């Protein structure tokens, strides 16, 4: 079998997904036997012009991580889509928007203002902001345009597969590598994780208790054997796809939903709100109001990784 041509790219990302691929350790040699990596900025020195020169569909598989929030990221996403037979939305940012999509709870103008003008460590007396085009004595410099909205990869180009996780676990990555090696990829559109919610994989004791108070994670030390939701902590388990091995819950912290919604759920945050509301013990309106207030940051917690797919869409500026 001829070696596959493999590309990896990062848009609005942190590098964690690229490092996760390297976390397969010595099995990276299996990848090297299986594929020629033709583009991977974290590890190899190929440039955009190398990708531009590739014929369409000459890349067998592209693992694309990071959300889309600039004109350059959109451009490269479209370029890699054209050059690739199979495009994989890799990691929570590409799949759901990820942490960068929390920017949908603010605006581009506020971000620029904070980062370039207000931040206490700045030395910017002329209040200079980055521009998409600027003239310098030698010629012209350009920068991409930052979008107001953070988008998922699938909101910009068609995608064949989704691998969720922040980052995807080594097990999942090896599943993908093995599927490529044995030419046994699942049907197009598949999300390569579990078909059940996290609760299914979590082996804490569930006693179907109702709760009368919501705790913030620093307010209690949870019992390591019992369901975290039943102890009053906000755990995204019921509204999150499994497949991660319940890593966070195993170290006694509640799930924050990085694997996205479980099968059949369109809006992860709405699903979680309904799951939590269904275990509120009280029917007294005052108590319910108190418990609602005990949720410190609803949008940022229920949509921690999924603002791009949220029905909330984004923060709206009044009048627009």
């Amino acid at each position, binding site marked *: 079998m001829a070696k596959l041509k493999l590309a990896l790219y990062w848009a609005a990302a*942190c*590098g964690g997904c690229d490092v996760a691929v390297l976390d397969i350790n010595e099995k990276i040699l299996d990848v090297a036997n299986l594929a020629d990596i033709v583009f991977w900025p974290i590890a190899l020195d190929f*440039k955009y012009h190398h990708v531009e020169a590739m014929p369409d569909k000459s890349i067998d598989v592209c693992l694309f991580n990071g959300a889309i929030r600039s004109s350059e990221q959109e451009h490269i996403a479209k370029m890699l889509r054209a050059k690739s037979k199979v495009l994989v939305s890799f990691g929570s940012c590409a799949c759901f928007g990820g942490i960068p999509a929390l920017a949908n709870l603010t605006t581009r103008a506020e971000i620029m203002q904070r*980062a370039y003008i207000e931040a206490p460590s700045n030395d910017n007396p002329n209040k200079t902001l980055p521009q998409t085009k600027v003239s310098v004595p*030698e010629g012209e410099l350009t920068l991409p345009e930052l979008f107001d909205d953070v988008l998922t990869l699938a909101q910009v180009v068609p995608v064949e597969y989704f691998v969720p996780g922040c980052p995807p676990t080594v097990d999942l990555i090896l599943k993908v590598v093995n599927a490529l090696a044995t030419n046994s990829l699942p049907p197009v559109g598949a999300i390569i994780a579990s078909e059940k919610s996290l609760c299914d994989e979590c082996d804490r004791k569930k006693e179907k208790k109702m709760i009368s108070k919501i705790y913030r994670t620093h307010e209690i030390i949870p019992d390591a054997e019992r369901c975290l939701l039943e102890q009053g902590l906000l755990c995204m388990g019921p509204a999150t796809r499994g497949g991660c091995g319940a890593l966070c819950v195993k170290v006694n912290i509640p799930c924050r939903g990085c694997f996205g919604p479980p099968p059949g759920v369109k809006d992860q945050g709405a699903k979680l709100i309904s799951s939590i509301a269904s275990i509120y013990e009280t029917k007294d309106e005052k108590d319910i109001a108190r418990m609602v207030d005990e949720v410190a940051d609803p949008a940022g917690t229920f949509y921690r990784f999924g603002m791009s797919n949220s029905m909330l869409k984004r923060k709206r500026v009044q009048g627009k």
Partner: protein
Amino acid sequence: MKKVSIDPITRLEGHGKIEIFLNDAGDVANAYLQIPELRGFEKFCEGRPVEELPRIVPRICGV
């Protein structure tokens, strides 16, 4: 002026490009490093509960 672009810069975390302007003699007249990305952690971390930040800010850099 002739311009040599290094885009993207590689083998580090993050996005960057370098534009090198050459004069008629072929020497470097000037070089510019540009960072074509901004995610806005400085702003979108505002309003998040402080005990959640240790789970948010490691996503600034996954390396």
